[in-house]
């Protein structure tokens, strides 16, 4: 159940709880070990990486993926898939550019609209997957097709318009003039806020119901969990967080039709690296976010290693398979 080892106290079933906590630590611990090794390796290759400036820049780069991974976590843990998050990111960026069109005054209303779009896509995904009983893999695959088609139908094939400076600031600027670290990026602040929020949510009633639903939805239903409602909320969280990530990426990477491509797979990979079991019911949100940080560290590492752009994919593929296999091996060993 709870993946936080600290949460497993010395209750009446201390034995099984202890073992479960050990298992959780081993399965989620792997990712922190991997993250630590990668960061240390990067620091060896590039000694000033661990200074506040470059390290915050790394966190800033990683923030959208970490937020996407947190969103995907909610859906994965409930036993579903969300393949639409990449297309939500694309939609958010393209819609923002067209509606804002360089006018700073429109930024905030548009942001509200974008978050609403993300949430609405989530409601659609959730309702179709639960009430109409379409497997979420197919629902969100359909949503992906529809969103990408719709947004380019609306803009006539290529993104138009421009983002205002204050919109871009969310992804690329921060609070200036802080001693020691010089600048605290907004995206890192948002990242921390969303991370804390996600942990608190997973510790609240909703989180426990979500894990129970993913683990065994019949048992959860019989014990009074509103399974459909819990799942729909998970999709809404995923859609909304994807919109947040899109707002950041728009500022960070600029307007393009490819901005969200493949992000859904990156997000799911990050979660699985963090020990989340596809099919639901097992994994912790902190580990999923650590998985995203690891993936971003992996990209940085590959850059520093000077591995040519072409073979980068190959190395990434090998490492992902190896890491997940290692996690599976550790998990089995602890049984």
């Amino acid at each position, binding site marked *: 159940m709870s993946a936080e080892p600290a949460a497993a106290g010395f209750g009446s079933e201390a034995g099984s709880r202890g073992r479960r906590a050990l298992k959780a630590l081993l399965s989620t611990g792997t990712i922190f070990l991997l993250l630590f090794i990668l960061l240390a390796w990067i620091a060896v290759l590039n000694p000033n990486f661990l200074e506040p400036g470059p390290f915050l820049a790394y966190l800033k780069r990683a923030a959208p993926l970490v937020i996407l991974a947190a969103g995907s976590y909610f859906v994965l843990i409930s036993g579903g898939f969300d393949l639409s998050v990449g297309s939500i990111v694309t939609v958010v960026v393209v819609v923002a550019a067209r509606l804002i069109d360089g006018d700073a005054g429109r930024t905030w209303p548009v942001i509200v609209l974008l978050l609403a779009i993300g949430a609405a896509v989530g409601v659609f995904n959730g309702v179709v997957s639960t009430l*109409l009983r379409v497997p979420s893999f197919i*629902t969100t695959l359909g949503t992906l097709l*529809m969103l990408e088609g719709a947004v380019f*139908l609306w803009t006539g094939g290529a993104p138009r318009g421009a983002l205002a400076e204050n919109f871009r600031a969310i992804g690329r600027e921060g609070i200036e003039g802080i001693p020691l670290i010089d600048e605290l990026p907004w995206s890192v602040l948002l990242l921390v806020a969303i991370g804390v929020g996600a942990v608190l949510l997973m510790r609240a009633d909703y989180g426990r119901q979500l894990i129970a639903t993913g683990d065994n939805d019949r048992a959860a239903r019989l014990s009074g969990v509103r399974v459909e409602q819990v799942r729909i909320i998970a999709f809404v969280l995923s859609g909304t967080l994807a919109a947040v990530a899109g707002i950041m990426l728009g500022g960070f990477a600029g307007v393009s039709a490819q901005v969200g491509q493949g992000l859904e797979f990156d997000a799911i990979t990050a979660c699985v690296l963090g020990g989340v079991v596809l099919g639901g019911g097992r994994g912790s949100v902190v580990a999923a976010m650590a998985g995203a940080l690891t993936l971003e560290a992996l990209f940085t590492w590959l850059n520093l290693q000077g591995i040519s752009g*072409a073979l980068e994919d190959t190395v*990434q593929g*090998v490492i992902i*398979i190896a890491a997940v296999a290692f996690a599976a*091996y550790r998990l089995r060993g602890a049984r």
Partner: protein
Amino acid sequence: MTVVDPPETHPRPPRERRSASWRRGALASPAAPVFGALIGVFILAWIVVTIRGGDFLTVSNIVNMLQRSVALGIVSAGQTLVILLGSLDLSVSQVISLSSLLAATTMDGQSANVIPAILLVLGVGALIGLANGLIITKLRVNAFIATLGMALIISGIIQNNWDGPAGRVSEGFESFGYTRFGIVPASAFLLLAVVVLVYALLRYTRFGYRIYAVGGDEEVSKLSGLRTHRTIVTAHVLCSMLAAVTGLFLASRLGSGTPTVGTDGGYDLESIAAVVLGGTALMGGRGGVLGTIGGVFILAVLDNTFNQLEVNAFLKDVVRGLIIIAAVAVYARRQGRDA
């Protein structure tokens, strides 16, 4: 050895099964609603296209649709095998691209090289499938991640070695893509052969029964003495080999190998959509290859209609997404409350 009943037959008592007429058998087949939907879509498309002044029910148009279904049909037949197991394969697009490149560069325009090229491509396909299967079973990596990782690996290898179309297939091999017997293109027979083969494999061999058993419940199959790992690995080998055949076919159509031929076609997600559109459960254990072909044809009819109506390419995606969701929602309703 355990004998597992094919899932189509076990819900009915034997006496009823014996007396079932051919018609009843055909209608009770899990593929029936898919072909019902296909006929519906077909008639609708016919009416709409004819009203708009296009040609729908002409021989050339139907042959055209058939030809466009061949590539997706072959990959989807392979994808059916692994989805029935409860697995899936996201690496097929990259396998298609790689095998088209390997075929074209090995042949290099010489007809003497055709056989070695085909053997090489099939061998590489089998090896990739073997790797997928072993990663999934022995390393216990989830199929989603294992095949996604494999897709990344192959994509890196392709990008490292080729940056554009390469090689040239021999003339004889190229003509295969365009040969016709009467009005029927030779490639349609390739598709037919693949479908018949996969159908027979699933329906009449032990291996086929094992696939349904493992897809139904892997743990139970293992406890009943099935070598589940062997079944999973074999299915993945077959799936990747069929993707390699698709690559060969596309190389023959295009005359050379292309690094993006698989990803441009979106064959990974498209083939999964076709399989699910064909009524196969994504969790495995239920469905079959006939439904998949129905699903492929539905997608082909839609594509053809949109092209004839000159529908905006982006609107096409919107409608296609909607139809996939709607169709699967209808199947889910039919399957009743236990899902």
